[in-house]
């Protein structure tokens, strides 16, 4: 059996429009899932990270519990909770897309929260002391001294996490959401061309993740004028 380019060309529109972007008769789409999941996960992560560093126990402990619980279970289990359990509890089914989005945001929030916390804690104590000693307020210490350094330190870990999340969206195909992986599976079952299909989508995934790491690298360099020779 030789490599069949035509099966890729004839199905590219379905794979890219429906599978990747999410335009078509099925709800879904890898990008339509990944982009809001990354943005919302980031917001939840900032809140969790700051909450975990809070002194007040009623803010601190719920955040610790959340992060440690979620990080202790596989992502697929979280997806299954929302797919099988939550509909039973609320008494009606939830569309695949919303199940996947909720599960991803909840799952990613825990990891991103830890990255935010580690980033802020990576700023040496002396920075806060110097800023405090000069009479700056808490808000200025946070926004002018700590966060610019913390965010720069966080970029590599954050981008790795976003890349992992982007690839993990393929798990949504297990509950039947029409993403890139599910689209490739559908086509390959019809055309009996799994090799071409899965190779094609691997390239698509790779292009996106590689671009993400390039952009991150540029961002890191741009935020580090002091580290340029």
């Amino acid at each position: 059996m030789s490599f069949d380019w035509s099966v890729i060309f004839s199905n590219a529109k379905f794979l890219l429009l429906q599978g990747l972007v999410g335009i078509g008769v099925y709800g879904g789409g890898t990008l339509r899932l990944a982009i809001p999941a990354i943005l919302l996960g980031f917001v939840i992560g900032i809140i969790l990270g700051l909450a975990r560093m809070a002194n007040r126990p009623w803010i601190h402990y719920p955040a610790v519990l959340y992060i440690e619980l979620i990080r202790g279970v596989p992502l697929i289990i979280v997806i299954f909770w929302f797919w099988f359990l939550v509909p039973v509890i609320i008494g009606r089914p939830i569309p695949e897309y919303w199940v996947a989005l909720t599960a991803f945001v909840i799952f990613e929030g825990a990891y991103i929260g830890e990255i935010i916390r580690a980033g802020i804690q990576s700023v040496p104590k002396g920075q806060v002391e110097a800023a405090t000693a000069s009479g700056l307020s808490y808000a200025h210490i946070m926004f002018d001294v700590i966060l610019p350094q913390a965010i720069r330190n966080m970029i590599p870990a954050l981008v790795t996490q976003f890349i992992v999340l982007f690839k993990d969206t393929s798990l949504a195909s297990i509950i039947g959401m029409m993403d890139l992986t599910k689209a490739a599976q559908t086509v390959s079952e019809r055309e009996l061309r799994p090799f071409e299909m899965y190779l094609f989508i691997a390239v698509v995934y790779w292009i996106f993740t590689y671009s993400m790491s390039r952009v991150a690298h540029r961002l890191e360099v741009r935020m580090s004028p002091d580290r340029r020779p």
Partner: protein
Amino acid sequence: MIEFRGVNKWFGSLHVLKDINLAIKQREVVVVCGPSGSGKSTLIRCINRLERIQNGEIIVDGISLSGKKTDITKLRAEVGMVFQQFNLYPHKTALENIILAPIWVRKQSRAKALKIGKDLMAKVGIPDKLDSYPAQLSGGQQQRVAIARALAMQPKIMLFDEPTSALDPEMINEVLDVMTNLAREGMTMIVITHEMGFAHRVSTRIIFMDEGQILEDESPELFFTQPKNERTRFFLSKILTH
């Protein structure tokens, strides 16, 4: 200018400042020395409340630090601090390091802060490094920027916590020279240092601390020639032979 009245401080069960009584007048240059762990850093960090005391009272520029109405931020603006590790903001240039607090705390206009900042960089001898980042400067240059940063707030008091201990020997003097000029201009200074030459030439008083207590509080002449305390003699014999 600065007064400690019966000050005690503990870190957990560790008693680090034991009944400290001390009064420092305007224009005095007080050198603090003593073995590692004796409480020197803690002593001066209490002055701008980087550390809190458990009992006693500290009065700075006529204001009690423990007063309920005390605006600690305002007080900190009057007290400049220079650290052993410089603690410059690595993501800001030398000039940006200097103008941050004057703009936000002193509410200076950016133009005025920049003007003062440039003058101070000239004063500490590195007028050509305005736009350098800390990582691009030598240790001695970084510490001079840190001094300029503290001076930009036009403080009434300057605190130095081992400002030359992290420097290569050939850079120590460029920092001590800046400090000497500052002392000659009449700045009230407390300096933790083991540079006994500097202490001898510049200070008006030398304090020796051990295990959280002030064991000696003397003029430099008496401190070096007739130390009262056995431990002071032992300490001096150790550091002066280097």
